[in-house]
């Protein structure tokens, strides 16, 4: 198991044996009773600390909704969520905001960066929001990250001066810089060409392997999912399969079966 060897950052108040995030019997419906759409039907999912988990499923399977709720972006209709051992189900808007700021990192498909800030300011935004400067250790971590992502000579650039791949690497740096409990990646390669996409996936995988970063990635791309330690399949708001590392071929096969069953 990867978590056994991964260094666990000191501020985490959970042991590696416990799940870093946990959804219990999660349900979510939208709309009024005349036109209700059910996105999740009793999903239970534990994400292990330090693991890189892919959440897969066809369009409309509920995978994005699951991610939004687990990341404190949306609220569940029923069920509970815990993050880092703490129940976050009933938190109000401000507490959820602080939670996202301090303990969750995000990488989105597009529109990841604040266009008016340069690369360094974008990466440091989570600290800025907290009204503090990074301490010496965090500063060293930042420099190492920027270096490993090849962004050292781009720190003064603005997002519109960067390629899509570079922008996504900045977003990854921003997501990793606070060493959050969990990084959520929503189709992180959706807007990239396949080679740049593979680079981004390699970066995410190595953050998990080398730094013990827990990552949950929502995707419908079998190649992207093949970079993860574990692949969870959703269909029609339920978890229908849950496997360890898979090849793209195996994942494609499973996905085709899901599409056929739908």
């Amino acid at each position, binding site marked *: 198991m990867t978590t056994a060897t991964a260094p666990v950052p000191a501020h985490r108040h959970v042991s590696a044996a416990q799940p870093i995030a946990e959804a219990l019997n999660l349900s979510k419906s939208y709309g009024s009773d005349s036109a209700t759409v059910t996105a999740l039907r009793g999903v239970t999912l534990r994400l292990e600390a330090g693991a890189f988990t892919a959440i897969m499923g066809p369009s409309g399977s509920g995978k994005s909704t699951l991610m939004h709720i687990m990341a404190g972006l949306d609220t569940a209709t029923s069920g509970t969520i815990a993050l880092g051992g703490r129940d976050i189900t009933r938190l109000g808007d*401000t507490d959820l905001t602080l939670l*996202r700021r301090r303990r969750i990192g995000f990488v989105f498909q597009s529109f990841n960066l604040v266009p*008016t800030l340069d690369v360094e300011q974008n990466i440091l935004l989570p600290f*800025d*929001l*907290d009204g503090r400067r990074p301490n010496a250790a965090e500063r060293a971590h930042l420099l190492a990250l920027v270096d490993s992502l090849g962004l050292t000579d781009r720190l003064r650039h603005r997002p*519109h001066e960067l390629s899509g791949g570079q922008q996504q690497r900045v977003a990854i740096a921003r997501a990793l810089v606070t060493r959050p409990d969990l990084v959520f990646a929503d189709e992180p390669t959706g807007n990239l060409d396949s080679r740049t996409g593979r680079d981004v996936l390699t970066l995410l995988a190595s953050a998990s392997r080398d730094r013990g970063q827990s990552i949950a990635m929502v995707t419908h791309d079998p190649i992207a999912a093949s970079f993860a330690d574990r692949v969870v399949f959703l269909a029609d708001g339920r978890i229908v399969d849950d496997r360890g590392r898979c090849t793209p071929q195996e994942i494609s096969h499973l996905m085709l079966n899901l599409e056929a069953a739908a």
Partner: protein
Amino acid sequence: MSAGAVTGMRAALGEHAPSILVAALSSAFGVSLLSTVGVLTTAIRADDVTGASATVAFILPIAAVIFLTIAVYVGAVVTANSFSTIIAGRTRAIALRRLLGSDARTERRAVTREGLLVGVAGSLLGALGGTVLTTLLAATCVTLGILPDLPYALAEPVLLVPTVVVVLTTWLASWIGSRRVLAVTPMQALGASGEANQEEAAGGLARSVAALALFLGGDALLAAGVFIGLSDPQGVLVALVGGVVSFLGVIVGANRVMPVILNLVGRLFGRGPTARLAAANAVRHPERTARSTVGLLIGVTLITTFVVATAGFQQMIRAAQAAEPEVYAGVDRMLTTTVAVFSVLMGYSALIAAVGLVNTLSLSVLQRIRELGLLRALGFTRGQVRGMIVAESAQLTVSAVVLGLALGTFYGWAGAQSLLGGIAGSPGLVVPTVPLALCVAVAVAAALLTLVASLAPARRATRATPVGALSA
């Protein structure tokens, strides 16, 4: 009519409501001003013991035309800005139609047609409102005995002039504001780019040089006016031309000047993430920012000019009075009345400018909804988002007000100095007087405007949810 067409029209009406309001305010102002002048001229003619009616009949319309021109100009700038902001939000839709084979000129003509409709609707509404208002006002004054009971002509053909002028300037403003339609490419319909390229910092070198030349040339004339004024009151004519030319330079170069001022003002708000983002947003589109603040700048500059000039007159006249009391009896009160009336008339342009400021901020929040959602996802609290919008609004207001106060103090001082620098008993050159009451009034008005301008946009901005914004 299909339901879709109705929704489309309602959306367009919502977008254009502020432009219609601006057109209505301008034409109401023009119509009221001209009918008031008509009423006053009739009243004064009937009561002509002093034989002054010819002078009044000559001066009043000229003053009315000057104020009307300023109001219409500010209104046109505001409307051009509203249109260019609306176009920025429609880029995708326009790009899609271009993709399907529509040509750029047709697209721009469609926008200009909306401008004509907005102008006609707003101007007619305003003319109607203005006429009703003046009629009621005249009737009230007659009842109260302030005005003699005479057959006043309140719906004269001349009132068509401001109405038509407002229609035409609104139309022209929509044409200027829709220039960017020509730059939309069909490719923009395909890309997922949120904000691919920042609006060009723009304004060619020629424009900057012209602005600088106007400003410096005007200032030289002002200095000459002040110098001549030390011996001859006709120096004020030179100074007047200098003031107009110099201020024209400021307006032409506003797209260069305002970002600099905004940067300085932005620093006053601290270096927190909220303040820093607000500062960056305020100078994000220099052209748009310049246009949304220039109306306010004009209003504040004009009011300050008049107030400071009057304070200067009073100061010099008091000094002269001390030397030769009988010559200057009663001048003080007349000056105070004049400045009060002029300030109200100038303040009207500031009101039109304020509508524009509110509108620009609202539209820009609407267009940034995804970005605001991203900030919420990354950990901006609702309070921080609201704080950011209020700070943006405050920076725009404060910048226009500070620059307006500075320019107005300079112009006002030069005006007073060039007119009265050489009067009997004058102390020669004096330091400009900035009345405390003016500063307080301007500060209060600026604070109110900031608050009002940020109210609706801030509410809209805090409604941005991360999920809604990011899945849109």
